């Protein structure tokens, strides 16, 4: 390995934090979904990096990365469907304008 494990981890951590911040501050729900994708990808990088450089079977990490990709695809499909439905009903896709579910 030419690049030490730590660098990959830090890289993934940076991506994760950026994604997290995006999730927290974006008003647009589609933007939030995109930020979530970013976080998931950061996690995937971690999985692959670990599987590559630690003594475990490298297949394991990649398998789980594949699972994450599949679930992320499902999440995006459902999430965007919800966005569309929401847009149709409420005429808005701003997360901070949707606050009916409270006292």
């Amino acid at each position, binding site marked *: 390995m030419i690049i030490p494990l730590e660098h990959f981890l830090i890289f993934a951590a940076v991506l994760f934090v950026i994604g*997290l911040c995006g*999730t*927290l*501050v974006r008003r647009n729900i589609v933007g*939030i979904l995109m930020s979530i994708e970013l976080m998931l990808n950061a996690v995937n990088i971690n999985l692959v990096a670990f599987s590559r450089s630690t003594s475990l079977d490298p297949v394991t990490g990649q398998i789980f990365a594949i699972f994450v990709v599949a679930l992320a695809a499902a999440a995006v499909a459902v999430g965007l469907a919800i966005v569309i439905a929401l847009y149709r009903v409420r005429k808005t896709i701003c*997360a*901070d304008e*949707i*606050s*009916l*579910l*409270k*006292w």
Partner: protein
Amino acid sequence: MKFDCLVWLIPALPLAAFAVNIFFGKTTGEKAGWIAVAASLLSCVIGLALCAQVWGGKVFAASMPWFDAGESAMRFGYLIDPLAATLLFVVLVVGTLIQIYSVGYMHGDARYPRFFAYISLFMTAMLTLVISDNYLLFFIAWEIMGLCSYLLIGYWFEKNSAADASLKAFLTTRIGDVGFFLGILTLFHITGTLGFSDMLRVLDPQTNSAIFQHPLLPVAALLIFCGTIGKSAQFPLHVWLPDAMEGPTSVSALIHAATMVAAGVYLLARSFTVFMYFPTVLLIVTVIGTLTALMAAFIALTQTDIKRVLAYSTISQLGFMVAAIGLGSPAAAIFHLMTHAFFKALLFLGAGSVIHGTGTQDLRELGGLFGKMKSTAMTFLIGSLAIAGVPPLAGFWSKDEILLGAFMESRWIYLALSTAAFMTAFYMFRLVFLTFFGKPRNTHIHAHESPAVMTLPLWALAAGSLLIGLPGSVWMHHTFQSFLHLGHHAESAAAGMVMNVSIAVGLAGILLAFLFYVLAPAIPAFLGRILKPFYLLSQNKLYFDELYSAIAVRPFNQLADSVLFWFDKNVVDGLVNFAGIFTGFVSAMVRRLQTGLVQNYLLILFAGVLCLLYFEGR
């Protein structure tokens, strides 16, 4: 045929009938009675077959682990020895006959299926109690019986008197039950077992004399006797039984005459090993029994309600049985229990038939029913002869047995019990003469005979009252007593004398009643005037209700009204209100966190994660 596998069916069948009638009462409707009877009959068949085997010398016993309590494992199972078999016989035969009778008696009642559901549940409990082989199961069944008693006394709960009576019965017996339970615990503490057979083994003076030095053992015996006092309506907790007559008459016959109240005596006979080495305890038992017998008979002399007379008679007869236990002859007590179950059930059912036919139970309105209700009158007369102690009917043999035991122990007890026996004969025939002879006192009553479904059980019970005493009689060489194996039968040269005296006492009572209520009806009124204090004493049941009301009920009510009401209003309610107000206050604060904005929640979650990381990674 192997019967061991069928034993559990005996209580299970009535339980099934209970389940059917309580859950599908609307569907079963008029068939409810026959469902209960069918279950009972099946149990009866199995039970009688078992009893026959036990009579042949077999003992059925089995047990399996129940749960572990500390170091000792609780077991539960059944034990059908001669004692249990006797009770099984009585409960099944009398119980089944009474249920058949109830089909007619309760006909047209609004809650007909529920009545039979309760009765079936009662049968389940009673049969479980009889065949149980340990105190714990015994106690559970005992309490279920108490519940059934409560439910059935208050069966017509629209009547305030019935509701009150059920409550009174429940609470009064509860006092005894607490004692009983404490007794069981004490006994467990001393012996480390609750099984009847194990108890016999542990409490053996030959192998284990040290245990008799334990200071708590007589206390345990007395506490167990408390259970009997409550359940068998002994002095001073007898007050509930007369009021229990508010229930349907067949209930009075089954629960409050033949079976449940006799369970207390059965308990004493079962626990006799605990009692028999303590003369003081036995003396207390004897005195209470004798006192109860005498007192109840005295009260019964002047009661005007046909069922109340019988209720006091029951208390009195139970007093005889308890006294017999105290006198050291449980065999005589169980013998009397058996005969009493038959003739007292017969008398109650006869009374029920009278009530059914005339619509009243007040002796002052009845009279001259002999012609109109032949079957009822005939069977009632047989029952009365049996309880009065006229040979060769059942009651004579068993009562004579008790009197003989008393005669050998103490002349005073013998005298008291003989007096009670005399009064028994008197009040029973007062009842007979006032009800069936003379002229009708209330001409508006048009009596009619009850249907066959009611009179057939009467005749069956009458046959029982005639014959059931014979196995224990001199003529059959006390076969029954030796079958019971409860101590050897007392043979005494005085037996003949005691027997003659008891015949004389019984006949004298009958003749006196004949004189008072048929030949010269003026005498009772005259006596009532000159012996007014005694008359009032008897009429007002020795003022027990008033006494208890003054010393227990009223002070407690006042306490509840004043102090406890204040406490409830301010402290208990205050606490509850405080909980509500506090919750409201806090939630008004906290609900501001719920903004409805998803990202807000996420931020808070994130903050939480950061805190965790901080504390973990510090």
